[in-house]
């Protein structure tokens, strides 16, 4: 099996409801935030950001950009820096994996990530009494002092593999492997699939004329694409601030 899993997120469809964030947290046993947590110390492997064209009144335009690990495919910034190989790219899936069991908590990978998509466990994980019954048994809880990030719901990939093996198949059925955020999005804004498979809808979506990637010029080849019909959104993502403030629609 050789795939390059990725996403195409349609920003014109994203309503900013945050269902993807909730689904991600529930699926991956992200603990409730500590009362002392701030927006900068929380655990949000999927984070919906609100952006605008910077204008006021009728010229103002707003959009939502879900940010998650981009699973960079080239010179993956967080992999080469980790001193103890706690981060690696799974060559068979293209997924950038984090091994919390081996993480020292030095946070060098967090400094290296241009998308700020890595999170540190600043507190001991704790759930209100009774809520621990809702934990996902397929996913290990991470301890205090280690880094975590989106792993494209790797536990679901394992389940899909087990199902395929039980059925005597070598390849998984793509319908069996859908990350929680993709499943939860009420507007179907997130398309997930194998970017290396030309027959996969995600492949053609990634090659859509209005598809783009964040900070593409860094050369890290992210496997998360976005698309938008709005020129200012594309310009903002490409750091073209002049076009981003024009607020023109295509």
């Amino acid at each position, binding site marked *: 099996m050789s795939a390059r899993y990725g996403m195409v997120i349609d920003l014109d469809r994203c309503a900013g409801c945050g269902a993807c964030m909730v689904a991600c947290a529930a699926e991956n046993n992200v603990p409730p935030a*500590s009362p*002392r947590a*701030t927006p*900068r*110390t*929380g655990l949000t492997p999927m984070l919906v*950001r609100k*952006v605008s064209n910077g204008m006021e009144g009728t010229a103002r335009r707003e959009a939502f*950009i879900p*940010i998650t690990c981009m699973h960079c495919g080239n*010179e993956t*910034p967080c992999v*080469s*820096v*980790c*001193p*103890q*190989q*706690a981060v690696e790219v799974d060559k068979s899936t293209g997924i950038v994996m984090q091994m919390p069991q*081996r*993480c*020292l*908590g*030095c*946070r*060098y990978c*967090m*400094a*290296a*990530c*241009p*998308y*700020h998509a*890595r*999170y*540190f*466990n*600043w*507190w*001991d994980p704790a759930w209100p009494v009774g809520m621990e019954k809702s934990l996902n048994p397929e996913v290990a809880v991470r*301890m*205090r*002092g*280690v*880094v975590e990030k989106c792993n494209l719901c790797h536990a679901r990939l394992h389940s899909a593999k087990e199902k395929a093996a039980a059925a005597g198949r070598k390849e998984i059925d793509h319908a069996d492997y859908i990350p929680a955020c993709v499943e939860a999005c009420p507007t179907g804004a997130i398309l997930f699939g194998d970017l290396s498979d030309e027959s996969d809808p995600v492949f053609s979506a990634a090659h859509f004329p209005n598809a783009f990637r*964040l*900070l593409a*010029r*860094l*050369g*890290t080849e992210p496997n998360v694409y976005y698309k938008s019909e709005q020129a200012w959104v594309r310009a*903002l*993502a*490409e*750091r073209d*601030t002049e076009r*981003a403030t024009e607020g023109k629609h295509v």
Partner: protein
Amino acid sequence: MSDLLLIDRRWIARGVERTPTMRFVLWLVPWVALLALGIYAAGLCLYYGLNQTNMDNRFAFGMWIFLDLAIIAMGAGAFFTGFLVYILKQADLKPILNSAVVLGFICYSGAVAVLMVDVGQPLRAWFTFWYPNTHSMLTEVTFCISCYLLVLILEYIPVLLRNRQLRKVPSFLVFEHQLHKLVPVLAAVGAFLSFFHQGSLGGLYGVLRGRPFAFRQGFAIWPSTFFLFILSAIAVGPSFLILVTATAETLTGRQLVQPSVFRKLGFISGLLLALYVAVKAIDTLVWLNITSPSLGFGPRDYYSYWPLSSTFLFAVTVPLGLLPALLLIMPTTARKRGWLLLGAALACAGVLLNRFVLTVQTLALPTLAFDQFLRYIPSWQEVATFGGVIAYGVIVYSLSYRYLPLFDPPKGAGKHVSLG
């Protein structure tokens, strides 16, 4: 000095004057208090976790990393003086060598102690040796700093064993004698290890492709910051040694080394600093005109945020770069103690600012167009932990000065106002 006032006389070398014991104890009291506060703060961080700090997911590194990089650069005086004395045969610098070794030991052991608090899982520190990622600059830093700290301990032991009472133990004397024979070898090994880890500390940020403010092209696997950090560390190490020794002279009221030693160290420091400023200027021009634009970032993305504007770039280059280099090189200023010390202080401040810019400014700057410029103020636990390291340094240096032959031969001016 009467034995009544100098109740630890038996531990002090013969023929040297030291301040009364009570006065020395009073000098240590505030530093011990600061050390105790530092240990308490570090204990809070270890017990409750790094939520005791003001670092966060965006400001993943904070004050500790900045000051660690800074004191390791300052501690470069140890390996570089050893390199000058034993490899380049600059024997006239030998009188200051023991002091340099103690200073290096303090800087490196203090930095390692803070690093152990700074990681989320200190008990997993050995993982880096067990599962090393040979592509990571941090692996290189960890290996070299650990090995070099061992070298510094081995260099410090002979100094320690020359204490008046410890010399009475025959096996210690033999051990010290044998270890002393190894010192030139240790100096060579120390120099090799230090060149590498000083460079790797620069490489830590220079390899960050995702942080265009820090990312640099370079030679082979090393970004230009690798070489710049080596150069700046060996430039500032001797200056820091001058500053500490001059401070010790002021506090003890004694001349500890000949002024010619200061002038020579100052000249070497100034010359290297001038070279560093020249290379740094070229590097900055290449970065601003070629490397950074190729990643989609321009000067406006870096220097339009107050207070981390281009003023810092100017400050590092001119008033804290070229100016101290000139003060330390020019005979007219280098001959005058005041100008020499000012030059050394400005040189140290320049490298401090350089380390601040690379560590803190890099993380404060946004990368995504819709991100904000961040501010970060360290928590009291962060400040106190580092204060504890400073206190530890002062205590170790004071004890070493009082009980060990740091400056050989001691130049007693006969004053009895020593704080050491």
